[in-house]
């Protein structure tokens, strides 16, 4: 399609483009909920060959929506074509965990996918391309991707924990009876998995400085027994209720993640899975979810926060899981390098 004069559109690559999350995400991107209501987008949709017919149907529907902001849509199963010139990439597609599948096997299967996509990003992405990895295990997949995309600065690669963050904020808002926008200071630490640590020890309610959120929510014990496990297992709860995993809320979180990153978080603390430099005792280079603020297109970890004893335990637990995933992933990668896969 011809593009009108004016600024060139943002090239956005989405993988797993015929899947459930993408079906909720793509209309949100086209409606301007990721980059704002005046930024045009050019979509590059990547799928595996068996899903290309279905993807064709998705492309038909996108055309049928007559989006003013959608400059063009390309559907492909070729990673190089998908990532060429990308200004932003949302990596939704990943190998799903089958019943009885061990973590090592899951990592091995995903290593193959994220290696190929990392290489394609490395070769073709536009300078400054921002990447968010959604497909699980998100943090470790981000690490693998980064390993195979050495020309992409680590700071431009992230894992999605904004969904967990949004869930935590919503739960706090409901518990204290405040509007969502009034709740601040919540963050997610660690791995986007059931070891994540949703931290409300520093939560605040706008206009109510005397409200102690932890107290209102029943104290540390209630947090440990109820709130934290609820957030950690929310994904499974959604699957149990819907018989499908969360697509709509994931898509919203992806838009929020990118919008904060690109457009700034306006001073608010949000959560992103990023490679730190050793903050809070986490090994440098681990893709770990931290409290961050975003400005000028960059994230920065909020430093100097007090981490109480209970929090430290949670943070250490999730860090340990990530280190285990990381070492599994590294051994998969070195085995692959040896057998020249």
């Amino acid at each position: 399609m011809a593009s009108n004069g004016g600024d060139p559109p943002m090239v956005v690559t989405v993988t797993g483009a015929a899947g459930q999350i993408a079906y909720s995400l793509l209309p949100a991107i086209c409606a301007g909920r990721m980059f704002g209501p005046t930024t045009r987008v050019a979509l590059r949709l990547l799928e595996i060959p068996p899903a290309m017919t279905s993807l064709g149907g998705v492309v038909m529907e996108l055309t049928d929506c007559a989006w003013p902001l959608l400059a063009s849509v390309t559907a492909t199963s070729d990673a190089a074509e998908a990532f060429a010139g990308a200004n932003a990439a949302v990596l939704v597609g990943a190998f799903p965990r089958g019943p009885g599948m061990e973590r090592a096997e899951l990592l091995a299967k995903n290593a193959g996918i994220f290696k190929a996509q990392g290489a394609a990003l490395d070769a073709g992405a536009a300078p400054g391309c921002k990447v968010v990895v959604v497909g699980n295990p998100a943090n470790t997949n981000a690490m693998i991707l980064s390993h195979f995309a050495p020309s992409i600065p680590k700071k431009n690669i992230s894992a999605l924990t904004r969904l967990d963050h949004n869930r935590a904020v919503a739960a706090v808002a409901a518990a204290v009876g405040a509007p969502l926008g009034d709740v601040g200071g919540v963050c997610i630490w660690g791995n986007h998995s059931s070891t994540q640590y949703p931290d409300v020890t520093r939560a605040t309610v706008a206009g109510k400085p005397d409200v102690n959120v932890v107290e209102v929510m029943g104290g540390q014990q209630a947090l440990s027994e109820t709130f934290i496990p609820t957030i950690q297992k929310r994904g499974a709860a959604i699957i149990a209720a819907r018989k499908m995993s969360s697509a709509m809320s994931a898509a919203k979180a992806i838009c929020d993640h990118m919008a904060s990153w690109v457009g700034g978080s306006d001073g608010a603390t949000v959560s992103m899975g990023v490679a730190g430099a050793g903050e809070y005792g986490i090994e440098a280079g681990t893709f770990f979810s931290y409290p961050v603020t975003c400005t000028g297109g960059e994230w920065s970890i909020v430093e100097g926060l007090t981490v109480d004893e209970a929090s430290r335990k949670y943070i250490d637990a999730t860090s340990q899981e990530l280190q285990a995933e990381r070492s599994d992933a590294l051994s998969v990668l070195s085995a692959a390098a040896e057998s020249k896969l």
Partner: protein
Amino acid sequence: MLARSAAAVAAAASAATRPSMASTLLRAGPTAGAPGGRSLAAVAKKDLMPPLTVAVTGAAGQIGYALLMRIASGEMLGKDQPVRLQLIETKQGMSPLKGVMMELEDGAFPLLESVKGTSDLEEGFGDANFSLLVGAMPRKQGMERSDLLSANAAIFADQGKALSATAAPGSRVLIVGNPANTNALVAAANAPDMLPEQFMAMTRLDQSRAEGMIAGKAGVDVKDVDRVIIWGNHSATQYPDVSHARIGGRWAKDVIKDDKWLTGDFVSKVQKRGAEVIAARGASSAASAASAAIDNIRDVHLGSKKWQSIGVLSDGSYGIGGGLWYSVPCACPGLHYTRVKGLPVDEYSASMMNATEAELVAERDAVRHLLPSSYDAGVPLQKLVALKEAWDANDKARIQEASKSLPARFQAAVKSALSS
């Protein structure tokens, strides 16, 4: 059927059809509930408007799922407009609906003030300012068309009654569930305390599809395509009309220069697009249907510079028989819609428009027995014209003849006028 032709209808596609008020789309600028921390750091409460209530039936279905996130994000009613969602499902649908409501919580939508789920129609439509009737009985294998019409008529009769009883005054209803036009007719006929204008049947999806195809053929951006019209029934007889369409201010027909395609492949492609998507996706077009519903309500509520095709109660314009929900082009100046009248209609268009009208008449006849006894189908224009001509000619025989086929109240009036 009244034959329409350019000679019979005055061409006045200018001042009369221009929106009378300045209209704007969603204003550019940071959107609440989206970029940056604004999604979590509030638009200050004092800057937000009082909430509007949106009811959605079939809320746990595919289209509902695609709709709800976008309504909650502020895309439908505006970036400063908080919404209350009331989600209506059948009893069987209440369980999956719970999962959807959990996801709406997890979405942390600042504009979403509350979410309620129910299988009780009056509760679900209570104080609703906008109702999207998405849920409908799907066609099952072996089902005759008349069975489908009757089954849906029962559903939409109940919904019309409930809306009339509890929806907010002046509320707008968009019927998406098929057969949309006849479902709208049935709902409106069963809503004695509402005006027919409040009920709209959705043909916006067909319009957007047509615009996309025209843009593709012409090699332009879809936003430069305007005034593509969908006439008639949201079905295979719909007529996608480009005779008034414009591309970047030029007549689309002059840009595309392929009348054969425009009256052939293009028309059948738009008519069959739904089936094409199902064949590719293995599922029907939920995302694009949801998008059309959002666009339809947004443009009526917030106004639009472009014409919108909406299935509305015919008022005799273009010789369309009364009492039908028939898609026509509308202008949307904000808060309401007005029909675009007086467009010249060529021979080809007339035949296409007649065909889709015939189908709508047949659909209405198939459900007539399910309409309330007080239902008045309205009087076709040509019958009134015939009566008037007979009256002007002072021809008693013709007057008797003309009034024979009119409703009782007309006959009584004619009788009383003749005897005075």
